């Protein structure tokens, strides 16, 4: 049975400045006691998530709510196993599928068929399963004879359709969806929407990050509000949005007063010297 548990989950990562990315500068600053490259060797650390606790059970359709930079995408990437927690722990059981950037790893000189095989291998789908799914993917993406051609001859929409068709053909216990998985024209969008809902229904746990409140309200059962990397609210999705709206209502005047007053009062970006 699928389960996702986070205990005091924290992610802190360095945003390296150009000079901190240079080995020469690093050696120079070591050997000269920091006099030469000292000040410029500082780097900024971002606390993308801090002390996040939750447990997701089968049947949970979780909406991650928060404005840009609140930690939604970071959390999804931690759940996907791409980022590793720098503090706390995460426990996951079940096969995870991530629908992030639909266009990742597409090779523009390879044909549609080759791209299906490559992508499926990235996603860890066994060969026998790929062969079984191939027809269905081709049919869904409506690309027909184009499948034999290198995808650089495709239009943007066609590429997106293919990518979407492949990504949504896997089986997963835990599904992670980041916003902006669009796929082609309006007619296709409706079809894609049905397929996505179908995919969601098949998965035990779904974690969704999007700014589209209407979609989220209709798809999700549970809402998690994140701000500045902290989990502020966890409950039914309607209540979560109500909480978020109130929060944003307060946050707008508050952030303006911060800008007018002291700048480092509540900042989660801290300067660290190397």
């Amino acid at each position, binding site marked *: 049975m699928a389960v996702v548990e986070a205990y005091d989950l924290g992610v802190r990562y360095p945003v390296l400045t150009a000079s901190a990315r240079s080995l020469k500068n690093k050696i120079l600053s070591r050997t000269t006691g920091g006099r030469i490259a000292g000040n410029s060797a500082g780097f900024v650390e971002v606390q993308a998530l801090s002390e996040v606790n939750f447990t997701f059970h089968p049947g949970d359709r979780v909406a991650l709510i928060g404005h840009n930079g609140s930690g939604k995408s970071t959390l999804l990437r931690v759940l996907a*196993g791409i980022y590793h927690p*720098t503090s706390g722990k995460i426990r996951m059981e079940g096969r995870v599928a991530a629908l992030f950037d639909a266009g990742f790893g597409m090779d523009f000189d390879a044909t549609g068929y080759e791209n299906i095989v*490559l992508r499926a291998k990235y996603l860890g789908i066994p060969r026998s399963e790929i062969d079984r799914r191939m027809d269905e993917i081709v049919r869904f993406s409506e690309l027909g004879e184009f499948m034999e051609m290198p995808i650089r001859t495709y239009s943007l929409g066609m590429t997106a359709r293919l990518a979407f068709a492949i990504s949504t053909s896997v089986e997963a216990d835990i599904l992670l969806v980041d916003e902006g998985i669009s796929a082609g024209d309006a007619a296709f969008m409706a079809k894609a929407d049905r397929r996505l809902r179908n995919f969601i229904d098949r998965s035990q746990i779904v974690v969704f990050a999007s700014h589209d409140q209407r979609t989220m309200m209709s798809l999700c059962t549970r809402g998690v509000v994140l701000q500045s990397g902290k989990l502020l609210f966890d409950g039914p999705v309607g209540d979560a949005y109500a909480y978020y709206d109130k929060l944003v209502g307060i946050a707008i005047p508050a952030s303006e007063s911060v800008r007018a007053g002291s700048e480092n009062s509540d900042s989660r970006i801290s300067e660290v010297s190397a």
Partner: protein
Amino acid sequence: MRDALLDMIEGLKRGDLWVSLGWHDVKQRYRRSTLGPFWITLATLIMVSGMTLVYAGLFRQELAAFLPLVASGLVIWGFISGCISEGVNVFIGASSTIKQVPAPLTIHVFRLVWTQFIYFLHNIVIIVLAIVITGIPVTPVMLLAFPALLLLIANLTWMCLLLGAIGARFRDVPLIVQSFMAALFMITPVLWQPSFLPPDRRWVAFLNPFTYLVEILRAPLLGTVPPFSIWVIALIMAFAGCICAAVLYGRSRTQIAFWV
């Protein structure tokens, strides 16, 4: 360290993925040239012919004796330098994949070494050609090339992993490494042999780890048994290098996704 080793094993298990990605890289290179597969071999062949003519003259060597040396040297060096100069960029180059797909990062290293190995197989034709032209007798000793090749690959793999992790963190390292590759080529006995040097200066070659990596494979390919010491040194290098790479990779593994 334990995580790093698990990651390596996990990466090896995804052989299916990196083998097909590697083939894919090679096919891509075919597509970009009209001569297809032959282009890789032809380019090396032209280089071998030119270098043989020039350096046999410079070193006052007979063409027939020098050709196999140059052919084997350049082909082996092509494999080594390909792995190193691309290895230092291995994670940077795969950044979009690393940020999108959960997979052990070592697959990118295996994919690179595998791709370079396929190129090497293309070029090995030239060594065979040189052997046939100069009439070097084919003996069972040449079978020693297989264990030698394994040792070489083991060494190149840890170098890729180590350099890749450092290169992802320090962006000037790829440039530094690439600018040193040409010098490394000149000071490594690729086109020459340590015996060409005056005895009191041979240490230059013997201190260079790449001397052994080239020689361990070149000797059996040209029908001589590599000295026992070379085997020992290559083995120690592979072992110590793997440990170094595992320690460093273990420390940076969780950070690489943030760096690239």
